[in-house]
């Protein structure tokens, strides 16, 4: 019976991403329900930027988000662990070199 209540009449769920100020990435802020994308953006504005937290909003219907499987995390992320040459601190520079 509970499954019946579930989702049938419910407005779709959306994930909200907010750019808090120009120059920064959009960051996941939370989620909400809305009947369409326009409403989702407006709801995001009303729910997640009441205290001037944003300058730009993205919304994505939650069902369209594809996530990696945490069970795969060893194959997904561990291989990056030995590629320290991707990180700037891997390289030794003389102290005289500034601002690099």
């Amino acid at each position, binding site marked *: 019976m*509970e499954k019946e*209540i*579930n*989702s049938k*009449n*419910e*407005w779709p*769920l959306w994930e909200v991403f907010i750019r808090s100020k120009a120059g920064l990435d959009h960051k996941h802020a*939370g*989620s*909400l*329900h809305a*009947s*369409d994308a326009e*409403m989702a953006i407006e709801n995001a504005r009303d*729910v997640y930027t*009441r*205290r001037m937290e944003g300058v730009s909003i993205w919304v994505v219907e939650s069902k369209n988000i594809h*996530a990696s*499987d*945490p*069970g795969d995390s060893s194959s997904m992320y561990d291989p990056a662990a030995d590629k320290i040459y991707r990180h700037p601190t891997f390289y030794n520079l003389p102290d005289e070199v500034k601002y690099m």
Partner: protein
Amino acid sequence: MTVHSFQEHFDSLIDNDIAIEPKDWMPDDYRKTLIRQISQHAHSEIIGMLPEGNWITRAPSLRRKAVLLAKVQDEAGHGLYLYSAAETLGVSRDELYDQLHTGKAKYSSIFNYPTLTWADMGAIGWLVDGAAIMNQVPLCRTSYGPYARAMVRVCKEESFHQRQGFEIMLTLAKGTEVQKKMAQDAFNRWWWPSLMMFGPPDAESPHTEQSVRWRIKRLTNDELRQKFIDVTVEQAKVLGLDVPDKDLKWNEERGHYDFGAINWEEFKNVVKGNGPCNKQRLDTRRKAWEEGQWVRDAAQAHARKRKEKMAKAA
């Protein structure tokens, strides 16, 4: 991995203070306990809008009206954040509402008390939000990621709530005789129910031990209650209000206030549905939900029609 090793992995995350995220494996009990706790909290926010909402149209000044409105709106936001966190555990908001509306789910019993005067807006902000913050701050580091993130947001916004409540009390306490009387009367009525907000004594609280291990609770009911009393009694002194407890006394040895017996019989009854406003609160919520059905349906129907139209046009 076998179930056993899943469990080991989960335990090691918990033991190492690493957040559990929605797609991680988790024991059924953990999921169930979280859904219960998060949704109870969400319901409390939504029901909690009503006693204060009761005074929005009667606020004594335009400034107070705007502040109260913004505060009650924040509570709607907090309910929303929490329902969203619960939804990551595989339950829908509609299901949770259904549990609330059918009386299956619980919410904080404090909201079953009536708001009789303007001073109640002060007392609720000061005491009820004060108690809530004490409960909630430790949850910002709770083990379940989405819950912890929701709580960070809630706590950040909550801080203005307690301040505005205290400010109302302070204004009344510094006001005329009748205003002082109003403040004391509200304090008398809200003090004991606020202490009950921390839940039954540890000895009778069935979930505490497991919940502390899972970090979905970080301090016990009694610890939090004591902390609240110690802090609040000092604040009452600033206001010049009398704590309505003749047994209240500083205990040098314990470094805490001793306090009188809490009427747990009353607490149990209010939880059971016999509080002064239980029925009224639930009826109001149900009515809003039922009367909103055609609105929600209309928006869905329009979205569907528009999608079809756009598909045809393409």
